């Protein structure tokens, strides 16, 4: 059975989480043992088994495509960390030319 090659720093970057050096080394060890534990699933032959995504097989739940009242703008903005002119201010995503 192969040893899982989890690089905590690399995955944290994918997950958009900065880690301190201490966190990185602690998580590396802790998640290493969790992954070792889940290696046991490889003992089972699941080649003929369908995956279960949900406990109830409910698919394609549709509703009428009609406009309904939503939350008021003020209520939506009340929780935003930074607003101006009734808009949410976001961190710049476009580089200066």
């Amino acid at each position: 059975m192969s040893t899982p090659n989890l690089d905590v720093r690399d995955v944290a970057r994918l997950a958009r989480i900065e880690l301190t050096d201490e966190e990185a080394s602690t998580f590396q060890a802790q998640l290493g043992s969790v992954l070792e534990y889940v290696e046991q699933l490889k003992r089972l032959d699941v080649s003929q088994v369908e995956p279960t995504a949900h406990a109830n097989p409910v698919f394609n739940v549709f509703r009428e495509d009609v406009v309904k009242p939503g939350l008021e703008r003020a209520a939506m903005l009340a929780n935003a960390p930074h607003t101006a002119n009734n808009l949410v201010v976001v961190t710049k995503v476009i580089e200066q030319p």
Partner: protein
Amino acid sequence: MSELARLTISELQSGFRSGSFTPADAVRAIEDRIRTTDEEIGAYLARDFESALAAAEIADVSLPLGGVPIGIKDVINVLGEQCTCGSKILAGYKAPYDATVISKLRAAGAIPFGKLNMDEFAMGSSTENSAYQITHNPWDTTRIPGGSSGGSAAAVAAREAFATLGSDTGGSIRQPAALCGVVGLKPSYGRVSRYGLVAFASSLDQIGPFARSTRDCAAILNAIAGKDPRDSTSLDLPQEDFSAGLGRDLKGVRLGIPKEYFVDGMDGRVREKVEAAIRQCESLGAELVEVSLPHTEYAIGVYYIIATAEASANLARFDGVRYGHRAKNPADLLDHYRRTREEGFGSEVKRRIILGTYVLSSGYYDAYYLRAQKVRTLIRRDFTAAFEKVDALVCPTSPDLAFKIGERVNDPLRMYLADIFTIAANLAGICGISVPCGLVEEEGKPLPVGLQFLGKPLDETRLLGIADAYEQSASREILAEIPAGLATATSSAR
């Protein structure tokens, strides 16, 4: 302590209806109790006595839950109130709407009251992962109340609430109910709308009640169950009275004992109490049948892949843009995201997001996530096969008594293994309930043991009937006992 604080919901309601006391008296009884004991327990993150009293003054006691205050885990949106999920990333957030369960409670006349402590984003088994405070077990305040709904369980045990709502993703209602000596119900997947419940693992999460009787749990389920167009996974089923099976014995009931749930590693004293409880069920008329759930040993592994994978996607919404914490002066967008999430999330949440991201990442998806989903199918089939032979299963809720605060915080795997008897129910989507079945003396203090009944999907009426029959014959004394762990619990209160 006011006598009122000790009542069950059904006792409270008879008093309201006969005019012996009013909903405002009930709110004051809770207020009084919270003011004297919650400093020691730490169950509530927020409480607003004034609003609750105002609601109590105009309560219609003829409604099914008329005038009954019900505590809410701080992961469910209640209009105008905080909803921190036990996380710093949601500090200061105010819910802009009511969750469907809250609207339904209000429609049934109940008064949603207070926000209860929990493991951050419901990730944990001890409530020690809250970013705000530790919650103490009322039976022994040096011990954990269980988790993740530890505040909801401890409040009911400490008589700081008559009943509460929690959420159960892998045992987060049943395990704390067991460790705090109260009743906790996880309904079947699809039974209760999750609209307004902050999502942890969407294929597993379910909202359910804590109370001091099975009857009370049935009354709350009656109020909160049902199809909701805002949660596409909620099921459209005929209206049902979940209290219809109460007040019977167990004659003709076939109870399955899953042999994989009675293995080494369980506290011997827990085992003894559970085995005695099963004999008690037999004396009430139940037929006992040994059954096998052969894939039990894989449930925790499957759970920690599926739950973390779903959490890593669900928690991507905490990006510091529309709500919640935002890091100061970011250098660029990547820095904004990474520092916002570093500062906002606690260790367990980061650990699980990283694990979930890993098992979903390219090259590992098939080996971990897809395989886990396939093993989940095998676990479901185990239950389907068992339920062909029996009406419900009976087993322990937790392998251990409440452990000491701090004992397991540095060993996540050991903490995860505490959920071994509760997790499979979420993977299979079935319903489950924990009722007290005994007290074990530990360091001079009695600690509760929980008995778990597991029912077929959507078979809550029968499940509640079975639990009620057992409770009436064996749990009432434990449920009526005021936990002695509190310095404020005097002998005169017992």
